[in-house]
């Protein structure tokens, strides 16, 4: 299925990128993923081409002095 209002083939994007990500998509889930991918694509267009000076760096700033104690295993599964 291709949404004719978009300039790209969402189905192909979803299938190819899922393959690159080694992310299996079951037939049950795929329609919802395609639907959400369409939405993501449309949302991203709102800011992707907004011109920014080259001097604008990404917001997060890395502080090499900040250590981080390893988190408890409670949060890994």
């Amino acid at each position: 299925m291709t949404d004719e209002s978009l300039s790209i083939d969402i189905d192909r994007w979803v299938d190819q990128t899922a393959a690159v990500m080694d992310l299996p998509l079951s037939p049950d889930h795929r329609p919802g993923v395609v639907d959400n991918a369409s939405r993501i694509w449309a949302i991203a267009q709102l800011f992707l081409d907004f011109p920014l000076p080259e001097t604008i760096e990404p917001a997060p700033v890395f502080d090499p002095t900040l250590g981080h104690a390893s988190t408890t295993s409670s949060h890994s599964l």
Partner: protein
Amino acid sequence: MTLDLQQADAVAIAQAVRAKDLKATAATEFALSQIAAKDPSLNCFTTVLAEQALIAAAQVDDAVQAGKDPGPLTGVPFAVKNLFDIQGVTTLAGSKINRELPPARQDATAIAKLKQAGAILVGALNMDEYAYGFVTENSHYGPTHNPHDLNRTAGGSSGGSAAAVAAGLVPLTLGSDTNGSIRVPAALCGVFGLKPTYGRLSRAGAFLFSSSLDHIGPFARSVRDVATIFDVLQGTDARDPICTLRPPDPCLPQLDRGTEGLNIAIAAEYFAHSAEPAVLQAVEQVARALGATQHVTIPEADRARAAAYIITATEGSNLHLANLKSRPQDFDPATRDRFLAGALIPGSWYVQAQRFRRWYGDRVQELFQTVDLILAPTTPCPAPQLGQEKMVLDGVEMLTRPNLGLFTQPLSFIGLPVLSVPVPQPQGLPVGVQIIAAPYGEAAILRAAATLEAQGMIAAPVVQSLPAS
């Protein structure tokens, strides 16, 4: 003096317990009885820690009897969104998958601080799975119902936290906010919800969603309660790499300063459209009460919302990628496909969103050189029906759930402190207004809120009787 525990706020409870007019045990038993009576209709709680709470309350009572002062929240029952680590309890974060985790080894920092101030933890609260939602309609644990109308959503993702306070189950709760997850449920349930400055409060021991955007914060029914709990929670924390190194800035002592010297403006354009009349009227009423007449335009707010969405989707998906690959069927259908799609976003889009965030943050910082506070609606509408897929705003039909965050998302995007204040509607459901400041401007926000509260403009009375569902 007999305190009306039904309506008493946290400060009143703590005062009474410290003055030995009330036992912590009695306050805790009351909270537990309210939970037993009302929670079956509301579904706020996923875990109730009755035994633990009563033991803790007895210890507080012993301390008070011995002449000690546990702190500003002595004997106050509280509960937390179930993404906060509670020692000995498995941190669900709204999921089925996390049930398999071992119990947390220690309390989240925020919980430890509240306990150190004398508060009594009574349980953990329902949320959207992994915080990815604005409605707390959780397929594993059920929806949380709005105490004002059980057929309506409590909002999300901290729905249990907001509804528990609105219904008077406990006077204080903790939640988290990435794109609106404290402010949206606060507005829909008619209570106060504070999303502080990004990094102001430690997130240590809270299960994250999107590290760039996650904040923790409190719900309460009075301004002094918000100020009290916020002051207790402030402080550096080596366990949290993004927690500020700034020393605490106590807000409670500043509440009575009023709004003198504060330049307050109303957010125009993006924040003045796509909202129901009752919502926009509430903003106008609050503005009038504060003497605010000027308008400001927060530029490119629609692009900010879009960039926040891309960051959220990418970071959230990355965090859960291993489980999305191996067990997608165990996710809530409401979150699963969004998480899966988020794994497909090009890296360059994510970086671009973060660069836009820097640009946008600089523009908003310029705005705050001439204003101290900005007012905006919290949500475009009062609480929708549970399961409501679409809504109409300004004659345009749109999806309900993502658009509940229309006005919250562009602000959390750059970590601005925001308090959602409840504006009761005599004939209808409550609505919320956001009071927004520059980073670390919480004291100014709370001063304005205290002024509004003293005028009777904003209030969060406990919902007296739950309507029949």
